């Protein structure tokens, strides 16, 4: 029984390691400036916990085989070792706290710093099950919005056109284009319930909370079209709340904006 | 214990615990005041933990109150209905009468102790009536649960506190009633008196806590800005 259990634990450990090392399913390639730092921290942590995982399971399996019952021999009456306990407590504490501190670096860069000046502002207003994207337009200012004016057919964010700043605002649905290699400042809002803006290749996820305007910033360094998913349960078709992030070279992005201005 | 539950007394018998072997339940002579097998201080200990729990409930409400107040906007502080001051006084008095009752109980002056205990229950009832009066006064001013966040919290906190006071009144009332019905036995048996005192003690702990809690809520709602 002991041998079998040790074998099974060994095989499970091996299978797990193969699944993680083989990367048959893995992160999509990172397209943001901060993405690689997150991936590096992830790999560092994964390596450390991977080693801990293998060591712990191996120790368990080894003890199970080595100390399985043999005849009527007594077990050892060994139940305390202050030195050993202090040692392993200190080591774990040191490793975990170091990881915890390292894990804050990217976080601080993303969330403690204000969006860099000159970042392109984009407002994302989530609603059950749509992403509304708004650009401030040529004047660089978001116009006033009013809840009463919201109309899913032609005014999804409730632009108040009596405000001059609102007149050049560009609103799109589920289509978010951004220029590559430029800081983007996203203002996240929600009209109804909590949603979460999740673009896996961007390594960016942030809840959109009704009543709050949450600011995030990032810089995409690769062009392409990516999916925006909702990561917070928001109701019936949460699993189909799909938007598209288009990362375009600057000239194409300007052209894209231009087309929408002329509509 | 072999009998099915037929009255509150039976429940109490079970709650207090088991009987020593070979001594069947001689309830005919009101024998239920026999010393319980629960060690001394168990009621008090359990009550302390129960109060910690109730304290967490109101801590939860308090944190919600502070967060909600911090959001500002539609927060419109109410003026306290005048009757609240009188209610507060009533509740403070009830703590004093309860305290006095316990002093008498310790001196084995059972009749006096029971009078003061009854007074406490009466004051508690008056307090509840007064709180209802405060609700009526607010309603007359057109202020309801959903009028603004501060009124929401006022109704919520007074109701939550009121429910706990009501529980206290039921508990104290039951203990008082039992005391009146068995005061002759209590007088003659120090062990039973001690047990009775432990019950009253635990109830008193609860009552003083509710009293203090009300003062705290009153300050939170109206004085602390």
């Amino acid at each position, binding site marked *: 029984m002991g041998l079998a259990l040790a074998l099974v634990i060994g095989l499970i450990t091996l299978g797990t390691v193969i699944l993680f090392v083989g990367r048959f399913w893995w992160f999509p390639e990172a397209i943001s400036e901060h993405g690689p730092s997150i991936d590096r921290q992830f790999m560092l942590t994964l390596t450390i916990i991977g080693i801990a995982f293998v060591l712990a399971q191996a120790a*368990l399996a080894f003890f199970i085989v080595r100390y399985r019952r043999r005849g009527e021999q007594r077990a050892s*009456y060994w139940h305390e070792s202050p030195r050993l*306990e202090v040692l392993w407590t200190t080591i774990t504490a040191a490793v975990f706290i170091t990881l915890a501190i390292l894990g804050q670096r990217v*976080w601080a860069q993303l969330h403690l710093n204000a969006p860099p000046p000159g970042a392109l502002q984009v407002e994302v207003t989530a609603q059950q099950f749509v992403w509304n994207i708004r650009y401030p337009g040529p004047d660089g200012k978001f116009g006033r919005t009013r809840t009463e004016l919201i109309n899913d057919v032609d005014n999804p964010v409730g632009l108040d056109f009596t405000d001059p700043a609102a007149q050049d605002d560009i609103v799109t649905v589920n289509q978010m284009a951004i220029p590559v290699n430029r800081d983007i400042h996203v203002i996240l809002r929600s009209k109804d319930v909590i949603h979460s803006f999740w673009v896996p290749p961007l390594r960016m996820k942030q809840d959109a909370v009704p*009543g709050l305007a949450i600011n995030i910033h990032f810089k995409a360094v690769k062009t392409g079209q990516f999916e925006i998913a909702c990561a917070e*349960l928001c109701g*019936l078709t949460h699993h189909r709340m799909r938007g598209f992030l288009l990362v375009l070279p600057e000239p194409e992005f300007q052209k894209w904006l231009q087309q929408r201005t002329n509509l | 214990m072999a009998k099915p539950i037929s009255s509150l007394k039976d429940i109490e018998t079970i709650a207090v615990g088991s009987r020593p072997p070979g001594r069947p339940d001689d309830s005919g002579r009101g024998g239920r005041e026999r010393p319980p097998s629960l060690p001394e201080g168990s009621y008090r200990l359990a009550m302390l933990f129960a109060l910690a729990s109730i304290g967490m409930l109101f801590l939860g409400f308090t944190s919600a109150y502070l967060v909600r107040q911090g959001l500002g906007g539609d927060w419109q502080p109410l003026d306290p209905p005048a009757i609240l001051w009188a209610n507060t006084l009533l509740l403070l008095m009830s703590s004093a009468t309860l305290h006095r009752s316990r002093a008498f109980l310790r001196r084995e002056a059972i009749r006096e102790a029971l009078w003061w205990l009854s007074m406490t229950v009466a004051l508690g009832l008056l307090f509840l009536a007064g709180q209802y009066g405060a609700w009526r006064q607010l309603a007359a001013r057109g202020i309801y649960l959903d009028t603004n966040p501060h009124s929401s919290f006022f109704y919520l906190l007074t109701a939550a506190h009121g429910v706990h006071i009501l529980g206290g009144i039921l508990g104290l009332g039951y203990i008082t009633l039992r005391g009146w019905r068995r005061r002759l036995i209590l007088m003659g048996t120090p062990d039973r008196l001690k047990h009775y005192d432990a019950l009253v003690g635990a109830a008193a702990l609860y009552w003083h806590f509710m009293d203090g809690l009300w003062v705290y809520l009153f300050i939170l709602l109206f004085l602390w800005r």
Partner: protein
Amino acid sequence: MTQAVATHAAPKSFIRRYIFSTDHKVIGLQYLFLAMVAVAIGIVLSLYMRLRLAWPTERWPLLAKLFPNAMAGGTISPEFYLSLVTMHGTIMIFFVLTTAPLGGFGNYFLPIQVGAHDMAFPVLNMLSFWVTLAGFLVLMAAFFVSGGAPISGWTAYAPLSAVGEIAGPGLGMGQNLWILSIALFCIASLLGALNFITTTLNLRTKGMSMTRLPLTVWAWFTTAVLALLAFPVLLAGGILLLLDRVGGTSFFVPGGLIVSDKILPHKGGSPLLWQHLFWFFGHPEVYIAILPGMGITSHVLSTFARKPIFGYRAMVAAIFAIGLLGFLVWGHHMFVSGMSPYSAIAFSLLTLSIGVPSAIKTFNWLATLYKAQIRFTVPMLFALGFVSIFVTGGLSGIILGQTSLDIPMHDTYFVVAHFHLIMGVAAIFGIFAGTYYWFPKMFGRMMNETLGKLHFWLTFIGIYAIFIPMHVMGIAGHPRRYAETAGFDFLAPLQPLHVFITIAALITAGAQLLFFFNFFWSIWKGKKAEVNPWRATTLEWTIPSPPPHDNFGPQTPVVHHGPYEYSVPGAAEDYILQTAPPAPTKA
């Protein structure tokens, strides 16, 4: 501490004896049976979810018979999927993982292990069970009201849970019943916790000092304290949520919301407030579920390793540290919620510190096995399985606890894998270890060893097959609570994993039938059990199986030894009962 010289005759009427019983053992069994009903339902719901995920468009006319309204047309619709998500989570967390290890085993064995004749307040104890049952029935009723069960998940995030039926099906009456059920459960837990605490502190028998308490008792005691302090906060949140729904208040609902083209009248509330209140309870709840499992594992490991548990004091300290830290880390559920990024850093550091006492426990379990004489009984297999799973599930917490890594991992299958392993499966393994271990004491018969081993192998391999692949799905970005992968291109490659996991889940769930069969078959047909079949040391093994109504009869046990005196050099046997006379036995 106390000498409770008392005995009570068992009540004679069936109703007082088995239904409205105040006997902690009967109440313990009532909790266990409730948990068994709940877990059976919870597993069935999870299988419906798994079927939907693997084959989203498939029709299941046979399965639809169980839910004729929700499954009209025979398919598992997305809204039904979400109500399954909600109900599976709520049932498992409250009515299985809290009910079985604490309400069930705690009630049955805590008084016996401390040498008491019953709980301190037997009537409160009885009430606690009946209120729990009422909570369960109210929750089940949510399936049968118009609109069905709520779709807001077990976390019931406002405003989705707060604004009523316009936000989605099941968010009307179903959500109200959900809140009511949770409120009842909170109250029941408080009554139970008071009993556990008072009994542990005040009803210990002569010689049972706090340092001679079995680790199971320490675990139940700490769990009770956690429950006592955490549940009231959930109750407070639940009351506020209910008022927002039916009283027109705005605690959690902000102004200017437009749901289904309607402007809502609420204004000024804070959705994050609900999350703070919820997780202030929710994180300790994780430990409420897992601590008793840790206690049982320590107990069973020591028994079958025939060795004293390694580092008893460190184990107690670790339980306490985990309990205490458990109250300080709730924010790690909210890193990407819009909460202050500074407090996120504090929460992250505290969260990773919880890894330290958890690691201490693992080290001590391994050290207990070092130079042991391991007997591979079924309870021991599950205890060893617990250690393996606890390590696997715990380590991924080191990733999730880091703010920056939580950005990609939050609300993905990585989280689902993590918490299922650590608080679901590990806790269930603790429950299984406890069931196989204490069954002979509870029913006077042994469970079938062969069936038990088969149950272990299938379950142990099965749960790894289910949950390890979920980690990589999370790494690939799969959000949780998605009814299908069809909506997104990046999810399409993950569909084969869904199929694999569903097949593994079906097999693993099937293996649980072995357990249920073994359990009920053994109650009537199992081999007769001796008083102390495992040659264990604690007080429950000194009294008949099943124990008499008043546990110890007129005699009150007197304790002379610690709980884990195995293989003491020079002793006649390789175990010393806690009640054995103090004089050192000469070999």
